[in-house]
């Protein structure tokens, strides 16, 4: 049955593979990068320099870290895995599926509010107000788990209207005006442009660690290593910082 499940997930991923490499320049080799959804704005900008410099065509697959972990466990054909938390990489490492991981970025939590902060939200304590519609990520999603930890540190009880399945769900519900506030990553607010952020003080904040690892089953080990090196290089770190991440 494991084999059959593998086949099924391979079918699901087939469209992603036939898309072919994107970007200009002479493409010598291609890699597939599985990356946490929050990394999309930063990683998309890395495709062009890598294609032009090293001749590597990159196919990105963005999804929730937990979804990607499940897909890799089921044998999805990826070369690199960039995760939004250490726990999922450790799981894959223990299963012998990835090589040693390296931290490449950090991301702070931030309160997301509508443009101009019409409800006057200034701290985590304000999220306890009963007149506000608060939306959080589900605790099974890394962003939701961190949000719970931050709220526990601030000793705030929140009555969320919804526990979204992805951190982007929180962002879009605030951007559409359906929710007054939520907790997302600082990078989400920087790249969205449609919302404002309220900083959470260090004492209450939870900093997410982003590890990256090459898969043991990677078909293109050289290309995968080149991608990881670029992410850790000064150029890669500058792109990450511009997208609201903290470098390492």
């Amino acid at each position, binding site marked *: *049955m494991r084999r*059959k*499940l593998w086949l*099924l997930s391979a079918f699901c991923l087939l469209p992603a593979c036939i898309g072919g490499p994107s970007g200009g320049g002479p493409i010598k080799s291609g890699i597939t990068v599985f990356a946490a959804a929050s990394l999309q704005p930063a990683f998309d900008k890395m495709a062009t320099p890598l294609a032009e410099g090293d001749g590597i065509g990159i196919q990105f697959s963005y999804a*929730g870290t*937990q*979804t990607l972990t*499940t897909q890799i466990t089921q044998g999805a054909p990826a070369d690199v895995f960039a995760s939004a938390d250490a726990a999922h990489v450790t799981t894959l490492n223990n299963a012998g599926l990835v090589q040693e991981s390296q931290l490449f970025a950090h991301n702070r939590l931030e309160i997301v509010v509508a443009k101009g902060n019409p409800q006057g939200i200034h701290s985590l304590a304000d999220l306890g107000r009963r007149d506000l*519609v608060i*939306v959080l990520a*589900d605790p*099974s*999603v890394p962003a939701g788990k961190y949000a719970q930890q931050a709220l526990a540190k601030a000793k705030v009880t929140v009555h*969320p*209207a*919804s*526990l*979204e*399945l992805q951190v982007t*769900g929180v962002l879009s*519900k605030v951007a*559409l*005006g*359906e929710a007054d506030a939520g907790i997302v990553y600082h990078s989400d607010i920087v790249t969205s442009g449609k919302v404002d952020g309220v900083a959470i003080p260090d004492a209450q904040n939870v900093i997410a660690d982003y590890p990256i690892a090459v898969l043991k089953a990677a078909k293109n080990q050289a290309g995968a290593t080149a991608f990881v090196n670029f992410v850790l290089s000064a150029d890669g770190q500058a792109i990450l910082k511009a997208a609201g991440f903290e470098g390492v």
Partner: protein
Amino acid sequence: MLAGLGLLLFVLPLAGLIIQAPWNQALGELADPTTTTALGLSIFCSLTATAIALVLGIPLAMILARTRGTLRNVLRALTTLPMVLPPVVGGVALLLAFGRHGVAGSFLRQWFGIQIPFTTAAAVMAETFVAMPFLVIAVEAGLRSLDHRYEEAARSLGAGYWRVFTRVTLPLLRPAIVSGAVLCWARALGEFGATITFAGNFPGRTQTVPIAVYLALESNPDAAITLSLILLVVSVAILVGMRDRWLGAL
């Protein structure tokens, strides 16, 4: 040969579900409050959505069956749009219409203080939006193949419009209505995309079984498989039950 392949596509995933199921845990999972809450909510929402679809969908189908030409094509395209629209897009559309800042939602909020998103009502609306076309299409097809001589005979014998409708048209339409309602209910029960977008996810309020399965799949795959099986068993049980009671005419 091709039919066999087609059948395999349905049967293999079901077989996978049944073979991989942690049967020893299934009973325990059934007693888990998360499961029972999601299941109860799913049954409530899908049945309510079907009831609303019946009340609103049958008149809509009658209008559709009576119009001709361009108007009919436009109406038909509008009613069947939710069938081809990705459900998530349907959910966004519902938010833009009935959300706090939506076309209708902002008035609901100002005048009556009603906010629909993130409520059970939102889950029911999302399911109705996605599932009602199945009922409308089935009833419209039934109406078109109806022999109108029965209605004319009843009218010539002095029966009024309402009496003809309830005593002649509806009974003749029964098979189409029942099969449309079953399709509509099944679609509503499995609804995911529009519900998560418009109603969000909160246990006991908007967390239906498909959403609970999606969440469990990431943290506890065994629970997800068990939940899927429970949904399967409930659907089959209701379908078989309905077949015996009402589908005899089909």
